[in-house]
């Protein structure tokens, strides 16, 4: 049983080639200034796509907006999600079902639906087309992901550490900063990373609530069919945090997978 089945290698190789290889083509497209049909590689490489991406604001304003919104949303989600995850993981609730349902439903309902509804309130509150409005809107989906991912952080080991810190006289805030968060840093990092990526790639909520605020997905979409080189160049900016996530995941994966 422990021997490797010989037929799994071709399947694994095919799966890897099918799923990993297409991503590499983005790089070629982003720098292919001249790429006439039916050549397999561009006739001329250059930076037209990157320059156009910068000129469109994708590399400046949209990139900054996306990063700001994703960072703020993730931070807020961690602050709100940490205590809720703790209550769930420590089985403090007699009936956890309703809270779990409240966390699961925003992940199932189309974000465009929630966003369209939020817009009607945000217009009245002066939050539509604002960074604050986008942060709140993104929180609808980022908070459930973060809270659910934080659940494994609260095991008996953490409780023991916190009790030890308490016996040495550490108050709640010091325990949180010096014991709880460092002890569960891998889980917190994974939750923060996924929360960031969910906000970073959000399209439906951004379009409905903050169509006037340029974010990377909003800026990229019009280029996809009109100028694939610019779309591919913007996609590289869009991919940057994803690569960081993959690097972090592969490091963590040595232990987890």
């Amino acid at each position: 049983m422990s021997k490797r089945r010989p037929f799994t290698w071709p399947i694994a190789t095919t799966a890897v080639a099918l799923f990993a290889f297409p991503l590499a083509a983005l790089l070629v497209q982003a720098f292919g200034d001249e790429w006439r049909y039916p050549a397999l590689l561009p006739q001329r490489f250059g930076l037209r796509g990157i320059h156009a991406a910068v000129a469109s604001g994708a590399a400046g304003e949209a990139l900054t907006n996306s990063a700001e919104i994703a960072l703020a949303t993730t931070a807020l989600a961690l602050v709100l999600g940490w205590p809720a995850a703790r209550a769930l993981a420590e089985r403090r609730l007699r009936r956890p079902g309703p809270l779990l349902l409240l966390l699961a439903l925003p992940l199932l309902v189309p974000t465009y639906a929630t966003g369209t509804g939020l817009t009607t309130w945000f217009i009245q509150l002066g939050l539509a087309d604002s960074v604050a409005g986008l942060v709140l809107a993104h929180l609808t989906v980022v908070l459930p992901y973060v809270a659910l991912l934080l659940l494994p952080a609260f095991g008996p080991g953490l409780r023991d550490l916190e009790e030890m810190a308490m016996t040495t006289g550490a108050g709640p805030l010091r325990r949180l900063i010096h014991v709880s968060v460092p002890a569960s840093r891998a889980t917190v990092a994974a939750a923060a990373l996924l929360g960031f990526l969910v906000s970073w790639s959000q399209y439906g909520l951004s379009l409905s609530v903050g169509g006037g605020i340029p974010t990377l997905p909003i800026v990229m979409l019009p280029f996809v069919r009109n100028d694939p080189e610019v779309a591919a160049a913007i996609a590289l900016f869009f991919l940057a945090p994803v690569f960081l996530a993959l690097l972090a995941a592969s490091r963590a994966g040595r232990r987890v997978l």
Partner: protein
Amino acid sequence: MIRRDRLVTVALVAPATTALLLLFAGGLLGAVRQSLEPGIVGGLGGSAWSALYHDPSFRDAVRFSAEIALEATALSALIAILAALALRRHGTFARSLFALPVPVPHLLVAVIAVLWLAPGGLGDRLLGGLPVSLVGDRAGIGIVLVYVYKEAPFLALLVLAAMGRSLAEREEAAAVHGADWPQRLRWVVWPTIRKPLAAGCLIVGAFAFGAFEVPLVVGPSYPPTIATYALQATQGDLIRGQSLAAAALLVAAAASFALAAAVIRLGRGLGE
């Protein structure tokens, strides 16, 4: 002491619960209110629902969205099971490469699909012409392919996590008792993976049913999906487009609720 514990618990869950109730439930309520708005020229509230009910293109959108969601979920689940069975004895490197699309945003995968599958794209260049049109095709094959590319690795990761290390030992025990490979698959592997797979399929199905960045980039101009129908409504009908869009999106939301309820019931059945 018990009272204090209860207060602490309430204090722990209150911030997240309040935020989600205000934002999510408030958002859906806002959509209901929007769908009942009479519009600029007045008229009865609820006319958007009536217009939606009588619009054949909305019926096409519902059918098209359901077909895409069903095909994408079924294909992703099948590939995920096969991939997990193949990859479970391989190391982190192969698994990480296979999982590469998981953190890649859907919109980016759609861009990659256009790059490869559009007329004049890389697939066309490599094969000297694609046998079928996959970008903008009325059957939505391109959309399904994008979802499978993105979701099959996600489901495979869930299945691999469920398999864990103990599965091999239990399979070995079954083999000692004379179970052949199909029997082990049916009686050992399937019971281990079916619950996380069902939960994953629910997420994938609900997302594929209601998302719109992929259909917007890869899909046809007709039929629309529910989400693209809603977007077109806001762009094409300035008077009651917003109400129509909100009503259409609420139908998609209701379908997600129904799907979740069905999977929870199924999960209970599987658990018995």
